[in-house]
């Protein structure tokens, strides 16, 4: 099916036209660079050239390192409580305007987080060992 643009009475998002043009230029530039380079660049590979570059030193071990899962747990807990605080600020600012409803809602929110907190505590998420 063809979408015919510019029919009378139709909404045309002309305000967004620059964005569209921008997107097109960005895409064309990105792809164009790659295409042009791949056409013109010389391609002479040998073993030395293919080794990973680490500031002139020979690479040590795998590039992918494993961290203890505990770091992730701490990070997640941090995010959870961080987000809580983010929500609390605007709530506190307009608290006097929205009254009981907002109060109940925030208490529910904190309560649910509290359940999560208890859960995390009981699961020993806060102890390092």
């Amino acid at each position, binding site marked *: *099916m063809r*979408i015919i643009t510019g029919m009378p009475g*139709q909404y*045309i998002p002309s305000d*967004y036209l620059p964005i569209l043009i921008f997107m097109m230029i960005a895409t064309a530039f990105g792809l164009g660079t790659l295409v042009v380079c791949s056409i013109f660049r010389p391609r002479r590979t040998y073993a030395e050239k293919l080794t990973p570059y680490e500031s002139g030193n020979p690479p040590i071990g795998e590039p992918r390192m494993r961290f203890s899962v505990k770091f992730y747990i701490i990070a997640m807990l941090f995010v959870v409580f961080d987000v809580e605080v983010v929500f609390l600020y605007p709530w506190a600012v307009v608290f006097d305007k929205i*009254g009981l409803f907002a109060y109940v809602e925030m208490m529910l929110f904190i309560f649910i987080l509290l*359940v999560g907190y208890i*859960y995390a505590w009981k*699961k020993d998420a806060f102890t390092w060992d």
Partner: protein
Amino acid sequence: MVEFPPLGPVMPEILMTGFALLILVLDLVIKRKETLAFLSVAAAAVVMYAVLGTSGVTFSGMFAADGYSMFFKLIFLLSLILSILISVKYIAIERVNYGEYYSLMLFSTLGMMIMASAGDLIVLYLGIELMALSTYVLAGFIRHAVKSNEAAVKYFLLGAFASALLLYGISLLYGLTGTTDIKGVAAYISDNGLAGNPALMLSVILFVVAFGFKIAAAPFHMWAPDVYEGAPTSITAFMSVGPKAAGFAAMGRVFLIAFASLQVQWAAILIPLAIVTMAVGNIIAISQTNIKRMLAYSSIAHAGYALMGVIAGTPEGLAGMMSYLLIYAFMNIGAFAIIIMLRSEGFSGENISDYEGLSKKHPVSAALMLIFMFSLTGIPPTAGFIGKFYVFMAAVNAGYTWLVVVAVIFSAISAFFYMRIVMYMYMKEPRREVELTTSPALGLALAISALGVLVIGVFPGRLLDLARIAITLGWGL
């Protein structure tokens, strides 16, 4: 001062939240996880009861407890109960008998319930994410198994991708219409003659992709085989029914209300999608050797059949789609229950060849599997036939006879791989001793699904009437 919104319509969800949190906390004190399973089933039953008595709109139209959502919530809760019942013994065998399992299932179901009731795209998104995040974790629940981990990561990454596309769709729509309210969007589109707008079409396409991912429609189905195979079998059963149905619930509401004036356009997108989905699902399923993978492709194919109800775009089509999903819940979870029975200590029971000669030693289980396979094929005395029949009828009445012809061809092809299981069970000699793992809960789940398949097969009129009433009861409140 902000008015306090009525909480009546949202009561089942509130209850569900409370129960899910309760189970999470109780897990810390209860050592016997079977107790948690029992409590979860009880919770689901209570919520089901609450769902039946709830109706109305709240949060200024953002949340609608209408007949449509009620029907879907019953599907979700049913699949939740059945999945919990088949899990009890299974997760012990997999050595992942943790309480979070049940809590996550409840949360996931909560997400689906919110999706079904969403009257606003933001609420819809909230529901999708709640459902999906819980399911990601569940897919990787067997954390000592590489396959399960892989399933979870794949599902998560691709799910995030799909969510992002959904958000693009929503934001485009918001940009065009200035609202995220589903009915508001519809009103704006028809009032301002937006129907041919390319940006709007782009938004429709993004919705198609996002929902296509949730219901596992080709070509957005790529995750399904890997995830279904890797996830714990009980979760595969759960995932293949609940989230799929939830995806259809959201799809029905968004496409038939918000995009009602674009029906011709989105139908033109969905028709090839449905055909490709049926083709991919049915043809690739033939060459599978792992039964979970085979049922994954089968699940893709069934999404194709159910899509035809949406394509029809009539109340009849929606009713057919809803009945189809309910029937699918029974037959698919039933089939997975049998697969779980074959899983025992040190034996996966996931190969199709493991079913050879099953009828010799375990005639009852083989007979049940036969019923489910017949139903999935769509052979008359079972519910599967009824489901297909209603959907096809609706499509024919909506003028898509040729699409029905295609669908019938594909469902004929599907007989090949479903009947192969039956043939293995009844016409081959057992290659090895297969011990079944049974438990009262599993037996109950099997009884419910088999009864569901047969009773709907024999008295199907009620079901369709119910689905129709559900739609007329305040569809699009």
